[in-house]
């Protein structure tokens, strides 16, 4: 199953549409951040990660840990598409007794760790990376971080340890959409320059367009030299794909009303229409 860049781009549009559908149905969700990381997850699960429902128990599988757990709707949609569970289960999102709560849990097939409190995933990823190295396994570990999340100091404890332990099998991805719940990250508590910070901690740094399928592919397939951990700073747009949600902080966990929902779907359907003509 090899998909072209344009096929993957089309898939991203379908994922975005499905993310909005399940959030609208649930009446809850983290819309903006889910839309900003859709392309990252798309490339990971459809092109990079060696993991599938059949191999999820294998110790040699690649690991994906979503530290920015609030964007779980995007992850649920991608996991359903990859066959980890039936897509129809997503209509139970945030409902009584559903395992599809607003952050990742291992009750959902395909999820490695229960995350959602910020600043946890990178340390876990370092532990997995060291564990894989101890067993001489070639699997890699990918951890998705939010840029606002990087204010949590534990990330920098993990960043230090990752380079100390030479975790060349570890990739941190920063969904760098520059917004958090209160507003611009640079106004809330600036963490720039991110690239220099990670470089100073001994990491290999790549800065890419986080919505470009080829750039994401290239970055995730690259392996740093000298056993250094890799950080991919993926510049993204919060709310990507829906014009009135793009780069607007209130969509962090905004749920569209009926009119907004219809408009958002029209925009995505039009984009899908275009790709089918292309």
């Amino acid at each position, binding site marked *: 199953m090899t998909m072209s860049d344009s096929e993957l781009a089309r898939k991203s549009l379908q994922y975005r549409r499905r993310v909005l559908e399940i959030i609208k149905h649930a009446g809850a969700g983290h819309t903006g951040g889910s839309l900003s990381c859709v392309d990252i997850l798309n490339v990971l699960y459809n092109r990079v990660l060696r993991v599938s429902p059949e191999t999820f128990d294998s110790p040699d599988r690649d690991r994906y840990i979503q530290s920015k757990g609030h964007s779980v709707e995007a992850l649920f949609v991608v996991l359903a598409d990859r066959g980890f569970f039936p897509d129809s289960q997503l209509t139970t999102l945030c409902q009584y007794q559903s395992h599809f709560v607003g952050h990742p*849990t291992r009750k959902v097939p395909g999820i490695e760790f229960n995350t959602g409190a910020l600043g946890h995933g990178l*340390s876990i990823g370092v532990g*997995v990376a060291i564990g894989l190295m*101890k*067993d001489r396994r070639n699997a890699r570990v990918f951890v998705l971080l939010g840029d606002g999340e990087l204010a949590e100091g*534990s990330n920098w*404890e993990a960043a230090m340890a990752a380079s100390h332990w030479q975790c060349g099998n570890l990739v941190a991805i920063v969904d760098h959409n520059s917004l958090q719940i209160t507003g611009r990250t640079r106004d809330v508590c600036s963490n720039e320059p991110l690239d220099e910070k990670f470089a100073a901690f001994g990491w290999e740094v790549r800065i890419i367009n986080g919505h470009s399928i080829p750039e994401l592919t290239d970055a995730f397939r690259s392996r740093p030299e000298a056993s250094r951990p890799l950080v991919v700073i993926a510049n993204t747009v919060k709310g990507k794909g829906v014009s009135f949600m793009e780069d607007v902080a209130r969509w962090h966990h905004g749920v569209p009303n009926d009119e907004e929902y219809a408009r958002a779907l029209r925009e995505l359907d039009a984009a899908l229409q275009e790709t089918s003509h292309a």
Partner: protein
Amino acid sequence: MFSPAAKDVAASLGLQLGRANLEEFADTLLSLARTNRDVLAVTSDSRGSGKLGPFGQALPEQIIEVGIAEQNLVGIAAGLASCGKVVFAVSPACFLTARALEQVKNDVCYSDMPVKLIGISAGVSYGALGTTHHSLHDLAALRAINNLDILVPADNHETREAILFAATARRPVYVRFGKAAMYHLVPARLPEGHGGAGRFEFGKARILRDGRDLCFVATGETVIHALLAAERLRQHGLTCRVLSMHTIKPLDTGAILSAARDCRGIITVEEHMIHGGLGEGVAGVLMQAGSAVKFRIVGIPDEYTVTGAQADIFRHYGITMEGLAATARALAG
């Protein structure tokens, strides 16, 4: 730690001073790790405090140092456990269970990673270093987290058994102990009639002595003081049952309710704040069973903790043979 009179009572019972539970832990872990290379010790600049220097020298590939970063320590431990490693995260209890509490709650317990959290120098073991280095909150904080077994061994035997239990446990475990030399709670040569009592069994109170007037339900390094008090009280005509409640969660409700039926009063003793620890756990069991047994909680009160070494703090708050005997006589009336 022990008055001359207390030492005399210990000697009369044939009890001998062992070594620090910390040393028993370190040796037990090393022997486990020698036969299983998946056994890992993760430390936060705590290999010296954890007596893991010999471990690090013997098995350098099985010790992972993360620096003074307890949150990272617990997160990394969870990641390692997900790879099938038998992970002992070793750090002073004060930091492990406060600084890294959210990692314990989420990365270990909620994610169900069978990490073995080892809180060293627990309670007021670092007495004179002040409250920053005390862990008088840990049992309260951790009892309120789902999916975590909590063990507070009293002597070398219980420590060894607790570590062996943790090594094979398939769910998260917290074990905390101190660094002072501890008496063995059972004489090397069991006296006539002692039978097979006194063995460690997870989730079951260890019955050190039987009695019908009062029952001491003690845990960790306070147990020896309760045992000596029981012997002292015998001279005053009171017979006391003594339970070493090494498993704080799940609590042995059967042993507690038996004590309530058999004895006129129960005294809990712990090296912990009086809120949220063993005492309130036992109280909850008794209240819900409708027991009207006389009851006292002995621990560290809710105040600015007195300064001094562990022995000073124990004495100040009545966690000594003499102090506990006085509490018992007052309760017995």
